[in-house]
């Protein structure tokens, strides 16, 4: 069984967010990019664990992005992926990204496609179900635990107070969420491997995005915090009831 993990790049979680060109473009000056945490920590690491447990043949990683993303994509090999693909296009919206991923997947023989639950930049969470629909595959989402038992996917999915144990035949798209695996720090061997890793560049059919980003705004600054003395916590309840009117 071959696994494909979809990786996206996002600004580091501590990045200061700002915009340029009259607030129409994200300002990437000085921004450090990382692999989207749920793609790397959960989807990729679990895929590699399945391979190490001999439950998967190979792990490939794919990113829709430009040549400037190659260094980041290589990190997947440092962590333990076998093969890297970059679909050569700038991501414009979830629909066009999913379409390019689906077109690529159709030319390959992956049985399991793992994505993250959502990206931390545009917080869409759209790609997993778009992909499933475009491929005509089933989707399990969000998935917090994943095992392969007798060629089938065994999963746990947590939705608020509801936990479900699921079983599905392959092929399957899975969106990975917390609990599936733990972050892995690449070792020296992995880092050396990744430097030599070949990235297979795939030229996609052009796809028009369906959604455009018009402009951005920063949220209004928070007002002054009202401090309540620690020996009168009852006052808080009074304020929440009578002033803020939230209880």
């Amino acid at each position, binding site marked *: 069984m071959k696994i494909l993990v979809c990786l996206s790049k996002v600004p580091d979680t501590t990045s200061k967010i700002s915009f340029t060109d009259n607030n129409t473009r994200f300002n990437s000056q000085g921004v450090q990019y990382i692999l989207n945490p749920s793609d790397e920590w959960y989807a990729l690491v679990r895929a590699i664990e399945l391979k190490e447990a001999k439950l998967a043949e190979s792990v490939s990683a794919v990113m829709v992005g430009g040549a400037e993303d190659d260094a980041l994509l290589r990190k997947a090999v440092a962590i333990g992926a076998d093969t890297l693909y970059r679909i050569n296009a700038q991501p414009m919206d979830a629909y066009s990204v999913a379409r390019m991923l689906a077109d690529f997947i159709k030319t390959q023989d992956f049985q399991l496609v793992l994505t993250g639950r959502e990206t931390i930049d545009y917080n869409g969470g759209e790609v997993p179900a778009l992909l499933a629909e475009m491929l005509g595959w089933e989707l399990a989402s969000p998935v917090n635990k994943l095992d392969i038992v007798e060629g089938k996917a065994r999963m746990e999915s947590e939705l608020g107070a509801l936990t479900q144990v699921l*079983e599905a035949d392959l092929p399957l798209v899975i969106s990975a969420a917390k609990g599936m695996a733990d972050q892995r720090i690449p070792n020296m061997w992995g880092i050396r491997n990744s430097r030599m890793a070949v990235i297979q560049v795939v030229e996609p059919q052009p796809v028009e995005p369906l959604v455009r980003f018009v402009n*951005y705004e920063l949220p209004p600054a928070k007002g002054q915090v009202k401090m309540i003395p620690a020996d009168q916590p009852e006052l*808080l309840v009074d304020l*929440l*009831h009578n002033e803020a009117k939230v209880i």
Partner: protein
Amino acid sequence: MNILVFAESQHGAIKKSGLEAVTYAARTASQHQGTVTCLVAGVDENVASGLGAYGAHKVLKMESHPDALGLSDALSEAIAATQARLVVLAYDALGRHLAPRLSARLGAALISGASGLPEIQGDTLRVRKSVFSGKAFATLECSTPIKILAFSPNTLAPEKKEGTAEVVSFSPATRNSRIRVIKTEEKQGEVALPDAEIVVSAGRGLKGPENWGIVEDLAHALNAATACSRPVADIGWRPHHEHVGQTGLTVRPNLYIAIGISGAIQHLAGVNQSKVIVVINKDPEAPFFKAADYGIVGDAFEVVPRITEAVKKLKAGA
């Protein structure tokens, strides 16, 4: 403009997110002389016609309650039947399955996680959503013939007025997902975190899982959901689904109470859209106070039980 809205039900009643969806669709329609048709499953005639009070003109009522794949089929058929140009639904766990599927199937633009009502001019729809985990807002635009607008739950409160809707029974052809549910466990008596109006959250300041009683007591008194910071879920003090923040769940309740949480940027990213934030921390320099509306510098073990008592007294008096 014809709007189709999906309202999710549970145990025979429309969920709050479903009532929000109908309200959202009705408010959008009122600006554009639109009609609102609502698709529901798993409710009786009365509940269905009752959606008229929230602004639905017509309700398509399904007898069966299909899974996510089946619901996406039902919605596709309903879109065709009503010639809907705009589809409205909540972007919650189910919406994350439905909305992208419809988008891919119909080539319809999807804007997900909208945090306000749309502006529609001619063929173009614009709406705002929160991006970069709450650190900014973006305005998005689309103009495909059919558009899908999936708003963030808790964007607006359900508005109940007078009126009943015409109910039409609807029997679309629906598939069943081949994914088998082996086991379902539902923790009783707990408020689900994603749609909670009040969230009581705690961090490493609580020192250990055995101390969560004071957090749970306060949550019970407020009828709130419980949440936690990432390290707390990582060490296994609390279940993973309670982890909020940039790499966990994003919540936007009316009230978020943070107990013994320092307020790291990654934590704030998941909670900074809450309407009112209360921070209880023994360190006056904790960064969370900068994001708070109300703060108490004090020891959680002393302060929190007293707050719980005061809440109980308030509720008993009300």
